[in-house]
């Protein structure tokens, strides 16, 4: 059995809080993770998840993604890697490059 000592701790969602969604399709079924919705509050997350899964679910659970710890038995799917800041222009560089096309 794995030690589940590989944590995936990258953030999920920047404009709004992200909520992990779990549904049960029948009372005898297991609770299944079905993805996540972006919403500023639990109430809005519930409305959004209900509009997507209300047709088939008998139970709906929501958990804030930033309160969820994700551990894997194997190393991360995409391998290690620092966040991409170094790969992206600074705001100043971006602004100085904008509309520079005619100079090139």
């Amino acid at each position, binding site marked *: 059995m794995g030690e589940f000592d590989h944590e*995936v701790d*990258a*953030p*999920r*969602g*920047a*404009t709004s809080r*992200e909520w992990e969604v779990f*549904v049960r*399709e029948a009372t005898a079924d297991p609770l*299944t*993770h*079905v*993805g*996540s*919705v*972006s*919403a500023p509050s639990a109430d809005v997350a519930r409305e*959004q998840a209900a*509009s*997507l*899964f209300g*047709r*088939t*679910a008998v139970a709906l659970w929501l958990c804030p993604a930033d309160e969820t710890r*994700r551990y*894997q038995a194997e190393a*991360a*799917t*995409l*391998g*290690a*890697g*620092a*966040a*991409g*800041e170094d*790969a*992206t*222009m600074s*705001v100043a560089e*971006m*602004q100085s*490059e*904008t*509309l*520079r*096309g*005619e*100079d*090139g």
Partner: protein
Amino acid sequence: MISVSKLLCDLDAEGDGLRYDAAGESTKRQIRDEKQRRPVVVWNVTKQCNLYCDHCYAAADTEIADGELSTAEGKALLDDLADYGAPVVLFSGGEPLVRNDLEELIAYANDVGVRPVLSTNGTLITAERAESLKAAGLKYAGVSVDGLPERNDDFRGLEGAFEGAVRGIENCLDAGLKTGLRYTITERNAADLEGVVDLLTDVGVDRFCFYHLDYGGRGTEIVDADLTPADRRTAVKRVCDMTREYHDEGEEIETLLVGNYADAAYLVEYAREHVGEAQARRVYEYLRVNGGDPTGERVADVDYQGNVHLTQFWQGYSLGNVRDRPFGDIWEDESNPLLRALRNRDAHLSGKCADCRYAEVCRGASRLRALTVEDDLFAPDPQCYLEDSEIDGPTPFGAGDEPTSAD
């Protein structure tokens, strides 16, 4: 995507095999010889953008957001997509050119056999950047312009954005890149459409893509500025008329309609009225093979943090994250009842969609718009502009009526 130039003017294109299973009859080298079985993947490589457009589905901003996939993670994602058989990756954003490793990622996609294409606002494309994109193996650059200068710049939040985008297009064309226009039609810019087409025809673009507004990201804030059904019908008719006019004049420009599969039904009706019954039958069969709205099937999105979405416009819901599971495992996981229902949507569509004679070529168009406006995943798309007489009645042509050379 619906190729007006292919369907009404028989203009061959690289996407014929991918889109219509029509590689054999095309004179153009094909992206795929068989119709796609795996989705085209839009990858929003960053949320950062140098502009602030009113209709941005990604709600992009000038600041760098936390959690962007790194260069190494991006390459691992591209390996993942290649293993799964994704035919095309569309580098999008935010503005993808703010990433300094964009060319490295494009070259990597090319190396692993996923066709790299680009969606950009064009204002960062200098002559040297266009050359480096071409050298990296980029196959196509789609540049967004949403009106003549005044309206475009107002929409995009930067004076000079129009001129910058046109210079970017010219730089791409000079570098030998296949380059096209992306134009999202709304009430605010419909009047500029012909002016932009005339101008960019003279510039020499290879392709026009006309997008209907989808209601995701900041697009939800300008739903009121969307076209009425009558105005939409007029705009789509104008696109069809213009396409035939410039093809008659010898301009071989590929022209596509994107984002509303009511267009598929309209194109059959248009062909019937203007090009003849035999061509209408061919158009219908191509569109039947194409398969209608591609949400959750032939198009997928991976955002800058690795979240997988049903389309690039539907950022408010994620199926899972590629940092947790390979893309193919997420996309194939039909234990998810929403994914299952979307892929079997014909059984769930309600209202006028349930009995529409064009259901097979449209498949209800945008589920996101239905959800946003009606709060009902399977309600009719509020952008449907078909008339009742077009909706009612038997299927226009029986299934299996293959177009033949005699047509």
